[in-house]
């Protein structure tokens, strides 16, 4: 929009505007009452300023400027304003000498002569400096807060008061800017009246602060969407204890017998709150699981007691990976082919957390298009990346978001819209099916077809022999069955002495045998060409068979003649038949 205007002219323009504005402001706007509380009982400095702004000018006031000293601005992580408990917009402006400027955009203009109370909240991180910088294990941590006794104001202030809450620790010293006094856990500066705009008088509060000074230096949050109903979240977190550094040795014994409890200058564990639907939670690092953590499932959340492998003393650091799965129906909303993901850009790590650098990566399903991202606060969006995982062909689109310096207040949801055809869900199962189909086809083709260039007559002959042997086996089995039938017939004959039936059976058996023999001789003939050794064995078998048949007929003659039951002979004969049939089986096996 301003591309055509030369830079210096822009500057001049802004300068003149600013000058005019300042002139106008100094005359017309006044802060009648200002109350500020600075909570420095944790590692953060949480500042809350309640300003009553009076418009003495002639025209209505549409926005109010808010100043923060540059010292503080360097540590500023979050700023927000409310009017009657309703959020209003805060916009950063170009800085003026010694101050960073923010503009509170009023939803309703302050008419001339009217006044309005505005609440501005801001959080400073890493502004409390440990003093002494290094402590031993037995000592407790003291820090110094440096600030301004006055409200950094763009307008003259009629009446103001600042309360510094330093918590339950011991107060070592504080700089006095009369009137100032200590009241229990607070130091009160003021009330001061009729302070000029941009007034500065430095204050220092030196006090004991035992709250954990841990900072997540990097948080890498990976959100992976699967349209099979799952959203996988993984956070890689690097944590440093940025309080007073531990000097000298760390004694495990002293640590174990230390009765100071939370006053020990170390962090033993902290609590991470995950979404209630979180499942399959894991907590590990480069070298494996960290087994010292516990999980509590509450109604609205899942609490993880994160216990690092070792207590974190000042200057010590650690890192870990925490991941879990979420059901996608709670976070992914669809309308036809249009999907909206609504999730937190940053999630809770511990109460009063400080994140130096956040990288959130969102892995979209393959072939997602028309991606639209809207974030609750300004972030730095990096170029998209590609990630190819399971069964991907072209890779998935990865949205990369970066932001520095975050606190609890930044736990807010973003929305991400994209288009994705529901038919794509069948891609991967079909690919897997296709792969296995091809594999099985290949095996089938390999097994069924003959790929040999030269004919291997030996193996082919072997196959032929195998087939013949199977036939022979069939014949032998039939023969054995016939023997059995004969034996039965003989035994029944012994019982009832009906020669007619025996004769009939014998005749039937004879014809069957003749048929089998014919078949057999055919096989033996073929076998001779295929495998001479086997045919010899078959011949041997034939001899056995005929032997059995002969003995059988002899035996039957004998039994038909004799009238007595000579069971011993019977048994002998049965055994013999059985033995020979076994032998036949063995011969087949040996072939």
């Amino acid at each position: 929009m301003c591309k055509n205007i030369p830079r210096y002219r822009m500057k001049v323009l802004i300068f003149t505007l600013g000058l005019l504005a300042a002139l106008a402001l100094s005359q017309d706007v006044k802060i009648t009452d200002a109350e500020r509380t600075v909570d420095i009982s944790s590692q953060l400095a949480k500042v809350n300023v309640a300003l009553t702004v009076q418009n003495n000018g002639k025209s209505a006031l549409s926005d109010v400027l808010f100043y923060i000293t540059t010292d503080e601005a360097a540590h500023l992580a979050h700023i927000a304003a409310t009017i009657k408990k309703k959020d209003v917009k805060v916009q950063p402006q170009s800085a003026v000498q010694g101050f960073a400027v923010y503009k509170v955009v009023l939803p309703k203009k302050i008419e001339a002569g009217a006044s309005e109370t505005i609440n501005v909240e801001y959080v400073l991180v890493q502004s409390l400096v440990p003093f002494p910088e290094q402590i031993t294990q037995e000592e407790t941590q003291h820090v110094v807060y440096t600030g301004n006794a006055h409200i950094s104001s763009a307008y003259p202030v009629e009446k103001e008061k600042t309360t510094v809450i330093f918590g339950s620790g011991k107060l070592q010293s504080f700089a006095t800017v009369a009137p100032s006094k200590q009241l229990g856990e607070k130091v009160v500066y003021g009330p001061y009246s009729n302070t000029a705009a941009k007034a500065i008088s430095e204050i220092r509060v030196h006090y004991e602060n035992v709250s954990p000074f841990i900072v997540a230096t990097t948080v890498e949050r990976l959100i992976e969407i699967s349209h099979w109903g799952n959203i996988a979240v993984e956070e890689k977190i690097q944590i440093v204890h940025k309080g007073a550094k531990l000097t000298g040795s760390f004694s495990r014994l002293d640590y174990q017998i230390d009765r100071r409890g939370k006053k020990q200058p170390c962090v033993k564990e902290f609590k991470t709150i995950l979404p209630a639907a979180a499942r399959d939670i894991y907590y590990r690092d480069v070298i494996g699981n960290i087994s010292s953590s516990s999980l509590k499932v509450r109604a609205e959340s899942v609490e993880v007691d994160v216990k690092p492998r070792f207590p974190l003393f000042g200057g010590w650091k650690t890192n870990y990976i925490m991941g879990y799965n979420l059901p996608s129906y709670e976070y992914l909303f669809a309308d036809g082919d249009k999907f909206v993901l609504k999730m937190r850009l940053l999630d809770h790590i511990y109460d009063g957390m400080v994140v130096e650098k956040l990288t959130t990566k969102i892995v979209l399903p393959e072939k997602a298009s028309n991606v639209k991202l809207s974030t609750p606060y300004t972030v730095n969006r990096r170029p998209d990346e590609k990630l190819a995982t399971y069964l991907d062909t072209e890779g998935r689109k990865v949205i990369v978001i970066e932001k520095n310096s975050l606190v609890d207040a930044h736990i807010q949801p973003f929305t991400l819209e994209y288009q994705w055809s529901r038919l794509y869900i069948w891609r991967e199962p079909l690919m897997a099916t296709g792969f296995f189909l091809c594999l099985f086809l290949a095996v089938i083709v390999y097994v069924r077809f003959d790929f040999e260039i030269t004919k291997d007559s030996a193996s082919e002959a072997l196959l032929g022999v195998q087939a013949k042997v199977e036939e022979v086996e069939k014949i032998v089995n039939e023969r054995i069955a016939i023997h059995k039938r004969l034996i039965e017939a003989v035994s029944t004959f012994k019982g009832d002495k009906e020669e007619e039936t025996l004769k009939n059976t014998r005749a039937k058996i004879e014809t069957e045998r003749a048929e089998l023999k014919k078949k057999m001789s055919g096989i033996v003939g073929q076998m001779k060409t295929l495998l001479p050794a086997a045919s010899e064995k078959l011949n041997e078998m034939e001899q056995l068979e005929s032997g059995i048949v002969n003995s059988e007929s002899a035996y039957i003659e004998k039994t038909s003649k004799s009238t007595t039951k000579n069971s011993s002979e019977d048994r002998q004969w049965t055994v013999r038949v059985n033995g020979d049939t076994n032998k036949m089986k063995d011969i087949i096996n040996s072939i």
Partner: protein
Amino acid sequence: MSSKSGLLRGNSLGLTSLLTFVILALAWFVGFASRLFAIVRFESIIHEFDPWFNYRATAHMVEHGFYNFLNWFDERAWYPLGRIVGGTVYPGLMVTSGLIHHVLDVLNFPVHIRDICVFLAPTFSGLTAIATYFLTKELWSAGAGLFATAFIAISPGYTSRSVAGSYDNEGIAIFALQATYFLWVKSVKTGSVMWAALCGLMYFYMVSAWGGYVFIINLIPLHVLVLICIGRFSSRVYTAYSSFYVLGTILSMQIPFVGFQPVRTSEHMPALGVFGLVQIVAAMQYTRTRVTRAQFLTLFIGGLSVALGVGLVGYLSLVWGGYVAPFSGRFYSLWDTGYAKIHIPIIASVSEHQPTTWVSFFFDLHITAAVFPAGLWYCVKNVNDERVFIILYAVSAVYFAGVMVRLMLTLTPVVCVLAGIAFSLTFEKFLKNDDHFRSNSSGSDNKQYDKLKKQKGYEGSEEPGTSTDGASPSEDPIGPNVRSIVSFVMSILLLMFVVHATYVTSNAYSHPSVVLQSSTSNGGRVMMDDFREAYHWLRENTADDARIMSWWDYGYQIAGMANRTTLVDNNTWNNSHIALVGKAMSSNESAAYEIMRELDVDYVLVIFGGVIGYSGDDINKFLWMVRIAEGEHPKEIREANYFTESGEYSVGAQASQTMLNCLMYKMSYYRFGETRVGYNQAAGFDRTRNYVIGKKDITLEHVEEAYTTENWLVRIYRVKKPANRNGVKYTERKIRPAGGHKTSSVVGRNGRKGSLKNKAVVVKGKRPVTA
């Protein structure tokens, strides 16, 4: 299994092969699944010590590529010497898992390299099972092969080295070993160059995977030698061995770590000698048909003795000349179990190099240990070319397994093969034709049946314990009752083997040893994660180039988990460096400080189990540190000084002053005297040693406690920078000259206070003389 396939014999080929396939697949699956106890109980983690190095090397290779891995100079080990990793490892393991990782990566299956490493050994156990199947099938029958497969899949002796997470060379080497043997047997059987070449290739894989390849390169020549001696030499053996030896040797020399060893060390010389012998024998056979008997005899005796003499003299002169290295100490320690203890304490100090107890034979092999002699007996009875091989394999492996616990691993496969043969034969005998015998209630005259068995060479094939048959060969008195009882007992034995194998795998071999587990009085599980606690502390909270001194056992773990520089590690290649660390540990604090300053040590790490009763701590290993230090520094360190007056090793009240003042004692027990482990125990009661320590008020001068883990298992000490010298008062600071008021006593020859040599002297007022 074999019984099934036995019954199916003669049935269609398809059904048999399907059954075989299913059984092999099941064996693979069972072998894989039974190795996952550690994953289920703990997590997907690399176990023990050596696997951590292998994992680190693999990760390095995956990250930097294969050639950079071969050229990798690891400056984080053996400080200040460093280690040329590429040239001192068997890269087969890393390449295998790197290849799998690469293939999966190309197919867009991102699997972390750690998970590939963790699951590599269980996966390869399935391949081992299949290789064993083929080997046994070649040696005996498919049925025996299936038995052997089932045995090797779950045999504790092999499982011990291949559970998930045990990412060590042995995990893939046993597969390579079995596959090489299978291909060797196949090539001896067929005499085909193709099989021999495949055998050479597999041998190459084995060489790239494990130092145990020396076993192969000695066993195969031994097989050939024995075949020659018993008159079974044939052209098949000649083809197989010649192809295998030439190809295998050339291929094996491609491994940087092996290099010229196959032609320059004594361990490889027998193979070369047999190669030469095979040529001579082949030449003899060739000539025998072409000359007369008398000529041949002269040629034979003369030629052989000359060849032997030349060979022996040549070898000895090469050894004497230094071209061929004589046998190494590790080799001698295989023949003389006392050798290592005297000459190489560092080898003797490793627990897995101790001689095997009888218990561990049973523990690792269970019923197969009792049955495999039967299988061996069958092989001896029905000997042929390839069975000679398995006999030699069995005999040598039994011997080596007796010498070293570690070599149980090479015994297990052959035991499984032979037990498979024994079981298969027994079942074949006692299960076959069972239905026939049932129908024939009064079996008596089976003369012919028996004779037939004899013809087929099954006679004498009974299990010795169940034999009733051998006594009366003319009759077969095995009645159906005996059959069913024997089959039942055998099945019970097999079931017990399964139970035992599962029990041993679960209880003895599935502990990562990185995480300790104990249980509370009410049955809860307590994880003691002290090792990782300490290593992670080192990783996060010490300078990136910090040097950590510890006993060599923990070197690989420190490098792998803490990613810090170590002085010594499990690759114990430099004995004197280890001895120096041992000396520092066993000296008093100021002497140790000097060593530590020389070695730039920043932190010292000791393992101390006194609080929780962990027996594998440094105090229990300390005597070996003293011994190894004494080996190199006999003047300063004497083992006897560390014993009590009665000659015992103790850190209790009677401990010697040397013991109580050494660095190891001090670091282990620093401030331990102030603790109480139980209500009714005195302060400073050591749970591992079960007595109160000798000296409780320990002060440290040159080191300070940097970190101690939750259960005191790992204690890390920081080496202090040299302290400032004691202050000197200003009045005392002036240096008083010794005699007179001369400020300097050194006066040059020419009376000047000092001069430079060859300094140009300017002589004024004279013109240089010109010629």
